């Protein structure tokens, strides 16, 4: 090395540099120690700290019902009914909810129910809530309500829901209508206002997605175990995982199979899973011309034998999903086990050969992040299809991009779409209405589910939807699910499990199939 022309000797000797760095370090350490007055941001002993993967934005659900939001929304606002963890119906603001005539339900409100501002819950609030959900532009519930019931008051606590046609699932549908004082309700996602739930919002920062909930002193029901719940928005899964591991948050949701593996077995952390209410499937494009091979159900069936579902579930999805045994998730109310996907590539090749299908080109499209490990799953599907002589091509779309236009067949042709369909009602019939009850009328605006139109099936779904006798409805539902299966709408399908990870100090968390839980039952242990 060449000696420097001006050797050290000025003020900035190594000692001086070390002094400066030591001073900076000292100041930083002081800052850190001052900043860490509550050392690592760890939640206090009486505060439950939740991290969600989606920002709540509001505590209303008129536009969308994201799974992650249900737990917190229901802690502040309540509905007449709610879904239990195993998708049964439970009464909340309603004391009684009975089908008293084919076209009418009689509801009696609980005595003494009131909002957090101590004002009573009134029948007018329910009528207004229905109107506001109906009038919200782009509201998610519109597709589930074949018609909006009218409210007829009988006495101060009793009223009737009346419809023109029978609506036997109204009690389930009403679990999604959150009740707000009529004077404050609007046909839009409410950003503030009061609810009748066990908690009130004491701090809200929609910008960051952080909310602080405190137990409502005016709550009409049993006092919740926890006095305070802190809700944070941590969009990145790795950050949620690190925050849970460090004890900074108590519960995280929406965890990929990889993260579950990472967390499983860690001291102080428990994974809760439950069969979910979402169906993810590789759905065929039903807008193909009649002479296209994919218009033949036998070809669709043959292709499904190419898919090794067990390998996908065990090796890529790491057991985080269950293979579908029908046309809706196996655990939603009214689901029937009507079929099974089986792996038999020889049979696939033989059937395709018999049907005269050779070198079939297939374009598979999906939106990035539509389900866990999506890319790996579809790359494996690509190889499986190639193995039976199909020539697949994969096309992935970024979230927020153009996939919706493609899905409607407005942007280009495709053959298979990997996507999911949820059931916020927990009912098989509402999923079937959304996916399999297509009509020519709906198809004019491309509002059918990927062109799936089978008039006989649509008629059966409509009949089942309006059947008031439970036993008869069950029979109808099973029959129509069997008929749908026979059309081979999907090459393969699975239901992702609902998963949350919690610190062991969190007790009483009973995870529901819709990925939510009753926060009033949650407790913190020392």
């Amino acid at each position, binding site marked *: *090395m*060449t*000696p*420097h*022309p*001006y050797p*050290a*000797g*000025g*003020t*900035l000797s190594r000692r*001086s540099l070390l002094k400066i*760095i030591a001073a*900076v370090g000292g100041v930083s350490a002081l*800052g*850190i120690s*001052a*900043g*860490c*007055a*509550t050392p*690592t*941001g760890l939640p206090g002993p009486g505060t439950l700290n939740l991290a969600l993967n989606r*920002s709540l934005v*509001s505590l209303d659900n008129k*536009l969308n019902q994201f799974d992650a939001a249900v737990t917190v929304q229901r802690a502040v606002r309540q509905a007449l009914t709610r879904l239990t963890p195993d998708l049964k119906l439970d009464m909340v603001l309603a004391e009684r909810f009975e089908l008293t005539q084919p076209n009418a339900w009689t509801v009696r409100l609980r005595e003494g129910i009131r909002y957090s501002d101590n004002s009573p819950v009134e029948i007018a609030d329910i009528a207004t809530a229905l109107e506001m959900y109906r009038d919200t*532009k*782009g*509201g*998610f519930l*519109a*597709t589930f309500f074949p018609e909006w019931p009218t409210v007829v008051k009988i006495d101060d606590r009793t009223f009737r829901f009346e419809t023109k046609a029978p609506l036997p699932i109204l009690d389930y549908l009403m679990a999604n209508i959150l009740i707000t004082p009529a004077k404050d309700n609007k046909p*839009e996602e409410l*950003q503030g206002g009061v609810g009748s739930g066990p908690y009130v919002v004491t701090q809200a*920062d*929609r*910008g*960051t997605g*952080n909310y602080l909930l405190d137990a409502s002193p005016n709550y009409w029901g049993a006092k919740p175990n926890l006095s305070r719940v802190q809700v*944070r*928005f*941590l*969009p*990145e899964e790795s*950050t949620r995982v*690190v*925050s849970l*591991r*460090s*004890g*900074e948050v108590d519960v995280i949701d929406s965890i990929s199979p990889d993260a579950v593996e990472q967390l499983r077995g860690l001291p102080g952390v428990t994974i809760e899973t439950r069969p979910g209410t979402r169906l993810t499937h590789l759905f065929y494009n039903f807008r193909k011309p009649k002479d296209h091979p994919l218009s033949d159900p036998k070809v669709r069936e043959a292709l499904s034998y190419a898919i090794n579902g067990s390998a996908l579930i065990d090796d890529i999805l790491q057991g985080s999903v269950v293979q579908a045994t029908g046309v809706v998730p196996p655990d939603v109310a009214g689901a029937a086990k009507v079929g099974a996907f089986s792996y038999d590539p020889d049979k696939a090749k033989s059937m395709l050969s018999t049907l005269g299908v050779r070198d079939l080109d297939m374009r598979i499209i999906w939106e990035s992040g539509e389900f866990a490990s999506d890319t790996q799953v579809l790359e494996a599907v690509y190889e499986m299809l190639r193995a039976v002589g199909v020539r697949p091509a994969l096309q992935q779309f970024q979230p*927020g991009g153009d996939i*919706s*236009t493609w*899905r409607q067949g407005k942007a280009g042709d495709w053959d298979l779409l990997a*996507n999911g369909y949820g059931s916020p009602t927990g009912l098989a019939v509402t999923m079937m209405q959304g996916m399999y009850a297509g009509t020519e009328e*709906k198809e004019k*605006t*491309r*509002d059918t589910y990927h062109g799936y139109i089978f008039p006989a099936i649509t008629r059966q779904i409509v009949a089942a939807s309006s059947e008031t006798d439970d036993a008869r409805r069950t029979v109808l539902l099973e029959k129509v699910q069997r008929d749908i299966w026979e059309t081979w709408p999907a090459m393969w399908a699975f239901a992702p499990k609902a998963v949350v990870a919690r610190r062991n100090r969190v007790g009483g968390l009973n995870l529901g199939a819709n990925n939510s839980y009753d926060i009033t039952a949650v407790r913190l242990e020392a």
Partner: protein
Amino acid sequence: MTRYLVKRLGQSLLAIFLTVSTVFVLVRLAPGDPAKAYAGPFATTEQLDEVRRQFGLDRPLLEQYWVFLKGLVHGDLGTSFSFQAPAINVVMDRLPYTLTLAVSAILVTTVVAVPLGVWMARRADTRRELGANVATIAGQSMPEFWTGTVLLTIFAVLIPVLPASSFATWGGLVLPTITIAIMQIALISRLLRREMVTNFAAPYLTVARSRGVRESLLTWRYAMRNASVPVVTALGTRFAAMLNGVVVVEVVFAWPGVGSLVVRALETRDYPLIVATVLITSVLAVLVQLLVDLCYPLLDPRVRLGKAAA
């Protein structure tokens, strides 16, 4: 000076206007539909049309632009589709977080990088400097997502002394600041070292030394002053860039700044929010650059604002 300021402000306003207008058009030409992001994947065509009407997206582009310009004059950048609140308010809610992080990072960078750069320059090409050289090259090479993840794992999980995410306590500022500062320290100290070494070798310093000027004065008054202009420019540029949001760091640490906000706005095609973010961060960036320009005559008396070099 006044004339220079007026001219610069005029140029800045034009630059901001052109930037915002370009973004206004480009986001609308990009693939994706905010109505679909807003109403969900299974909204009917009728519902989507209604949402588009509500957002004014059914109008011709020129008309949308005219409405936007009218709003801009009144400080109204429209309502965020996803937050259903004035877009400018949503950005202003996040701005303090970004400012805090940017100021903190630039302070740490300056305090560490300047002495380090000078020290390296005084010992350029010696064995002692080799270690610092390797460290700064490593700091420059490590991507922030990796540095952030390593720091998180060490200080939030293995030795849990600092929060892993967000800004619940002041301690939450430490890891994001260090993550950003590591790369910036490496960049600035190496830049300063290079400038100082050039100045140490310049004839004017030899003359000064021969006249018996003390080494401390040679370093800090002579060489440092001459080397400071590019360093201040670099610090200003880095700071302005940070004000646009340190996206990767904000995502890794769930920092609620404008960087993560703009990512979300882009994902949901929230046009008003994208434009509002660009506008506010552009204004800040331009102001920082203007301040940097105004510092030049203070650092180097030979610089005369608005006048070409002789």
